[in-house]
């Protein structure tokens, strides 16, 4: 992305030392790879992308040297294509469906080509804009879902204001994604890009604390809520609280954003869990130089919910799996973590059977994130599902309150960035349709005669 971030990145971040997994393509390689694309008719890669980017068209435009056009094709379908190009699990999305795979040949590296087009040609001027409508939409959170929703609405001519709790915008793109896929600067550059589409952002504003839902409903015609998930779930075992044990999302946030944070000298680290966050944490620990990284998972290797390609990479990097095991207690001496006491599991449930203690000095807990149940109460009529997700229509993303829409992790329970983007964009179009069929613009909100960017 050609824009430099308008946010100051915190200095001395531990993530800065972690190498990029996907080095960018140089122009020659991009051309060769783009020319390899067969430009399939009714290409299977298109529907395999949740935002349905016209992949063959954007790749062909790289091949013909029309980079601007390529970036425009991409952005028309996905405003957060720069981060998606880096963080999407392409191995199980677009690239998996490439017809070359069925032909036993390597698929087109769609993610890398997308990144190439974004890096070289993305610009806010590429996108058509409607004249201002005077309508206003408020958005809770500035993660991928809300950013995509706000950007789309802004291009459609509506005023948009993001309310973000954190000092830095971007949601998990900024604070959670593995540094070797995307670093904080790249996420902030993308936020800057969205803001240049005309979106307003207020950071340090927590809806439900700094400002109430009612106030938002008064200020804006419509509200989109994209607050993501809550804090790391806990193990609830003895010894868990205290130094040396961290929730995965909280720990990754520290290594990505905390100035001067360093890992204490760790010899043996244990990550608890079998999902993608657990695999990310394990790989990050290994890349930070921890000599022994263990993954403790309560079921078998085949049952792990993390992607196979991520697990294979973790294994290759030396991560050891202890399967069918669950922690019973964090063993400590004078407060320092000494090891984990483990129970054998059956069907994922701990049994009385103890396994040998696992000596370790650092434990990362990656067994899921809680749900932000409180926020729904701020908006009358917004309901939760049994497992705490915000209930919203899967097509229009409208909640039980016709003025309130919701999308992203908070609605789908935790998927990928590209799903959050898709939901945000589709919600934006549904909101736009409502606004255009509805009455007069809300007055009293901030001025609408803003300049582009």
């Amino acid at each position, binding site marked *: 992305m050609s824009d430099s971030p308008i946010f100051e990145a915190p200095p001395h971040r531990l993530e800065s030392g972690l190498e990029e997994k996907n080095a960018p393509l*140089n*122009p*020659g*390689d991009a*051309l*060769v790879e783009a020319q390899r694309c067969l*430009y399939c*008719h009714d290409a299977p890669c298109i529907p395999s992308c949740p935002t349905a980017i016209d992949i063959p*068209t954007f790749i*062909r*435009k790289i*091949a*013909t*040297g*029309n980079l*601007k*056009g390529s970036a*425009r094709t991409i952005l028309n379908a996905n405003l957060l294509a720069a981060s998606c190009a880096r963080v999407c699990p392409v191995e199980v999305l677009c690239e998996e469906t490439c017809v070359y795979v069925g032909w036993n040949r390597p698929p087109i590296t769609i993610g890398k080509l997308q990144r190439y087009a974004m890096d070289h040609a993305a610009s806010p001027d590429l996108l058509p804009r409607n004249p201002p409508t005077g309508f206003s939409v408020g958005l809770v959170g500035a993660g991928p879902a809300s950013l995509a929703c706000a950007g789309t609405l802004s291009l459609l001519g509506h005023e948009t204001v993001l309310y973000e709790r954190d000092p830095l915008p971007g949601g998990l793109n900024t604070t959670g994604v593995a540094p070797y896929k995307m670093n904080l600067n790249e996420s902030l550059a993308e936020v800057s890009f969205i803001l240049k589409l005309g979106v307003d952002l207020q950071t340090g504003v927590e809806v439900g604390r700094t400002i109430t839902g009612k106030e938002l409903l008064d200020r804006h015609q419509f509200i989109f809520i994209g607050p993501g998930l809550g804090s790391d779930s806990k193990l609830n075992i003895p010894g868990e609280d205290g130094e040396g044990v961290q929730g995965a999302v909280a720990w990754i946030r520290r290594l990505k954003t905390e100035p001067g944070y360093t890992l204490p000298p760790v010899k043996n680290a244990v990550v608890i869990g079998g999902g993608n966050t657990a695999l990310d944490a394990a790989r990050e620990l290994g890349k930070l130089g921890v000599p022994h990284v263990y993954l403790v998972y309560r079921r078998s290797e085949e049952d792990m919910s993390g992607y196979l390609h991520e697990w294979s990479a973790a294994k290759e990097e030396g991560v050891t799996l202890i399967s069918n095991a669950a922690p019973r207690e964090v063993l400590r001496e004078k407060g320092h973590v000494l090891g984990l006491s483990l129970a054998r599991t059956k069907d994922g449930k701990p049994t009385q059977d103890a396994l040998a203690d696992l000596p370790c000095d650092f434990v990362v807990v990656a067994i899921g994130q809680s749900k932000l149940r409180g926020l729904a109460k701020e908006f009358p009529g917004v309901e939760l599902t049994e497992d705490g997700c915000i209930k919203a229509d899967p097509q229009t993303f409208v909640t039980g309150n016709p003025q309130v829409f919701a999308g992203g992790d908070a609605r789908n329970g935790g998927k990928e960035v590209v799903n959050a983007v898709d939901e945000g964009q589709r919600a934006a179009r549904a909101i736009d349709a409502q606004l255009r069929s509805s009455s007069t613009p809300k007055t009293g909100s901030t001025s609408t005669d803003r300049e582009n960017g």
Partner: protein
Amino acid sequence: MADLTSNFAGIESPNPFWLASGPPANSGDQVMRAFDSGWGGAVWKTLGNPIVNVSSRLGSVNYGSHKLMGLNNIELITDRPLSVNFKEISEVKKRYPKHAVIASVMVESRADWEEMIRRVEDSHADGLELNFGCPHGMCERGMGSAVGQEPKVLQELVAWVMETTKLPVIAKLTPNITDITEPAFAAQKAGAHAVSLINTIQSVIGVDLDRLVPLPRVGNASSHGGYCGPAVKPIALRMVAELARANEFSLPISGIGGIETWRDAAEFLALGATNVQVCTAVMHHGFRIAEDLIDGLSNYLDQKGMNTVDGLVGAALPAFKEWGDLDLNHHVVAKINRETCIGCQLCIVACHDGAHQCIHPSEKAGAPADLPHRVPWVEEEECVGCNLCAFVCPVEGCIEMVEERRGDEVDTWNTRVKDGRDHVPGGLSDS
């Protein structure tokens, strides 16, 4: 955003991209889908007296893994009833009034021409293209390239047409001729409004070595066909440029031949075409390529600060010169980038066997100090600057041809002859 609207010999269209007469413009359904995909106009598949086609009828040249670098066909003009074609043309024009629909026509007798033109006018087509180009099947019947190769006959035919209609008339020329300007001037003299070129080039695409039958095979035999597709672009470009710069040739030119991307199109425009037509690339990739043609050309014009397509038309013509006017002091030398070289040594073999023996392996005496193993080096005094090594190098940008002039002033062969420093013809002395 640049304005892409086009006016070709009085025929307006939303952009300068037309389907060339051929299979993609064979029916109303196709032409309407093409317009929906962005094409600005279409030259209908040539209309004429009923014919019967053979099967198979296309042949392909593949280059490595690239398919359809060249295409050859032995197809004739439309094999659908004229009444159906005209009905569809009217319908397309009704539904797409802003798009250009041109009827391509090829008949023999004057009566047939007059009858055909009346029907074209009734269909509300925007103009006529006279097919003087088809080099197979029809020429044996005294039509197509048989006319295009006889400037006198061509002139007479165009004159008949001009007497009969007020519609814009485009003469489509065959490249199967020594001097393209002759038929073009004949068309101009007869009053045609424009020319289009090139039609296909006579060709035999290959031979089935098992059966010992040329391709494309029709039973146990084949026949020569017409060659088109990316492979013919350089030939077409030269003919368009030759005509565009010809003194006293003033008709607009519709450029055809091997156009597949916006770059190809831009090159034709830069060398003097007012609009372009595409056939093979659509047969290969479909109507959808219009999007990149439009988008790419418009981005290019923006980048060049040109507001309209006309700004580009002919922009490279002043730089298209006779060999004798080229600067002999312009000199380039090959430079190999050590960082990106992969050590394949393809440049060495090309230069040694096919050029001037001045690229050497790293172990040869005289190599620069600290040259990595297998990175070749150029003996620069011997390099003639032919470009061959840069072309065979598989790594984009690894071999760069760097300008090192041989003198400050421009010196051409023509000035040397004029000053008596060189002579015509060269002579055989070594001095």
